[in-house]
């Protein structure tokens, strides 16, 4: 049933680029260059545009987990007196920092950042970053996160151009004011002035990149059979996303699109006989990414969808409308909430499941990362009402201690058996 899966050339290029970037960044920062340590839902654009390198908390967390170090650090976390029901994904880098043995960490650890930045989307983010700040002495810049009182269910239809209505003027005013304060701090830190005209061009480049990802999502959704694994989808989206708007990121997005297009035209697919299409809901299972191909041989089931690709378009494209900082505020001001809060997440998942012709969804519910887990059962019900079978995966993106692959495979297999039986296969 499985064809001999040939990875994309784009994947090798993306991972090589990231490796090279990481090596160069490591060389820069270990030789004393300034850098920022930031959360994923902060305005990376401001740091990039000011020429201040960033290390993203969740990316670094995934790197630590991929090195199979999370078990050690989470055990250590409890010896420090932190209880075992605190968030893991956002805190793994902090725990590695508190543990202090830099030799154990990827890259030999991170030196002291010049600035820390988090958005107060979840209550614990400011606690975690505050502890980083206490530990390293680095200043902490917090971006406030008042909620959207009346979230429009079909947010992605308004977010690109009617973002003023969607995200509310008072929230955008506040966020722009906070961006201006952050820019002033970055100017002081870097000794450079913020180039507003250049920033407009940079924001336009990001929109262009995200439109390419929208094309790619369309190709994947409409291809007769899924042409690539999500374990390839994710790096080809997320690596350019970490460098969004750069010349390399744009050219890589184009390369990825062209290669996929060719692949689909040639009829290449993950499975010659694709029987079941699945979606993986939530962040990646960073310590066990090979799990995503587990059911290809046994059930003809392929993971066709992960949030990172379609969210690149819906979560990022924002018309500039003559005010690039305000457009950036529209991108950032509910970035995380759109992926976790009802009705935003349930409506979007149903839309995506229909578009990608999904049969079965695996929904990661990190019980100790409440912000990421909230609204899951609303989303589950909405998907079920749309005809998608949903399997709850009560686990964590970076903590493998409660992950039992055999048990999960058995649970998923039982559902897939039932789906095949229903389809008469």
């Amino acid at each position, binding site marked *: 049933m499985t064809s001999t899966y040939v990875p994309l050339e784009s994947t090798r290029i993306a991972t090589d680029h990231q490796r090279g970037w990481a090596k160069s960044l490591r060389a820069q920062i270990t030789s004393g260059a300034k850098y920022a340590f930031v959360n994923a839902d902060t305005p990376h654009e401001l740091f990039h545009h000011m020429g201040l390198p960033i290390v993203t908390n969740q990316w670094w967390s995934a790197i630590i987990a991929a090195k199979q170090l999370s078990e050690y650090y989470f055990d250590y976390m409890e010896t420090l007196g932190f209880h075992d029901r605190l968030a893991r994904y956002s805190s793994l880098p902090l725990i590695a920092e508190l543990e202090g043995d830099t030799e154990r960490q990827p890259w030999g650890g991170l030196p002291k950042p010049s600035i820390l930045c988090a958005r107060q989307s979840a*209550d614990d983010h400011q*606690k975690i970053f505050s502890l980083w700040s206490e530990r390293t002495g680095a200043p902490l810049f917090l971006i406030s996160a008042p909620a959207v009182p009346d979230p429009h269910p079909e947010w992605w239809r308004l977010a690109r151009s009617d973002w003023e209505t969607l995200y509310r003027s008072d*929230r955008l005013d506040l966020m722009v004011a906070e961006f201006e304060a952050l820019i002033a701090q970055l100017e002081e830190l870097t000794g450079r002035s913020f180039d507003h005209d250049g920033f407009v061009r940079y924001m336009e480049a990001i929109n262009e990149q995200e439109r390419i990802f929208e094309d790619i999502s369309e190709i994947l959704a409409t291809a007769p059979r899924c042409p690539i694994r999500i374990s390839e989808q994710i790096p080809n989206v997320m690596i350019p996303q970490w460098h969004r708007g750069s010349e390399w990121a744009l050219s890589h997005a184009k390369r990825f699109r062209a290669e996929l297009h060719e692949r689909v035209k040639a009829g290449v697919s993950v499975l010659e006989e694709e029987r079941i299409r699945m979606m993986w809901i939530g962040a990646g299972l960073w310590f066990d990414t090979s799990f995503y191909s587990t059911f290809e041989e046994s059930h003809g089931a392929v993971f066709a969808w992960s949030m990172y690709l379609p969210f690149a378009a819906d979560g990022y494209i924002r018309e500039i409308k003559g005010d690039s900082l305000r457009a950036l505020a529209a991108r950032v001001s509910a970035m995380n909430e759109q992926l976790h809060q009802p*009705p935003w997440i349930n409506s979007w998942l149903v839309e995506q499941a229909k578009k990608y012709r999904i049969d079965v969804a695996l929904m990661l519910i990190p019980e100790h990362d*409440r912000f990421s887990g909230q*609204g899951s059962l609303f989303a589950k019900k909405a998907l079920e009402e749309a005809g998608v079978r949903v399997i709850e995966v009560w686990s964590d993106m970076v903590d493998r201690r409660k992950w039992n692959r055999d048990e999960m495979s058995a649970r998923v297999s039982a559902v897939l058996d039932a789906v095949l039986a229903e389809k008469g296969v």
Partner: protein
Amino acid sequence: MPHSSSLRFGEAAGTLLDRAFDARDRHRPSVPLPRIGIFGNGFPETLVAAAGGLPVHLSMGRLRRTTAIDEFIEPFVDEEVRVFLNRLMNGEFADCLGIIFARDDAPALVAYQYTSEWVRQGRAPKSVPPLFLWNLVHTATPAVMHFNALQAEKLFDFFERIGLRRPSDEAIAEAAAAEAGRRQALERLETAGLSGTTAMRWRNAGRFMSATEHADLLNAALVDTKRTAQKGMRIGLIGSSLASTASYEVFERFGTIVCDWQPWGAVWPGPGNGNATLPEILRATAADPSCPRITPTTAYRNALLQALANARCDLVLCQLAPTDDTFGWEIPALASSLERRAIAFINLGFRDTDPETWHARAATLISAKLEARK
């Protein structure tokens, strides 16, 4: 401002306070006013009073039966949210003109989001009143102060929509004066030499009545009550929201709770309530260091340590709801700060769902720790 007349019934004020605490949001104050439900700390109740309403906290009730929404509530959602949502869908808050949720109180935000979604899906009964999210940001930059002033305007619009009056400056000043009276009465309560259990019950009784009635009852109860010599250790209680008389009584076998710094402790009413003008109310509310989302972030732990030091605690007990994901980040730093100050710190960990098991474990832990310090 109507004056309290609970005392006309001739009952002891302490008994009335105890009865109100036990009844929670089912308590019926002596002067009926339009009821406005409140979920969470961080909302200045003064503003509801100034609009002619009675602020009634809805997050401390008890669950009688579950409803269909229960199956949508994940196990990591705080118990007070689960109880509230089920009660709301049972029609138990039909007598409220509206419900206000404090965004910067974590359970309140989830309660608001899940309620809103249930309403949006058309699954909520008609008895669910209009909802309002109080979006105040807890810091003091000019941009935040402007934002917070806009939130107050939105709140006033909401008041008008639900049939209350838009608060005038005079009405705010009058309501603030009543709150200042309550604050004075609460200060007397904290220094009256009562048990922490009684202080917790009488303080929280005020969440279900007007500030004036609460102040009158407290003042009368404190006249009636004999000061008793405090025994044992001076205890500080910290961690997750707790309003269990039984738990307090277990802790007070070892001394007296003299500092109650958990969300259902002495951090309520918030510091903005007694201020006479709207800008002053908003400024003080935004600067409330008991909010875990306060910026600068160090303000929270510093205020907690200062409160424990001011109360001259020699034992601090930390207890956590099984769903805690925020306070736990403070524990190691608090433990070492308290150790440096030679204050005993006992982390009782997560509360057990079975109160008897939890109380027995807590008492054993406290005994063992105190024995080890001898």
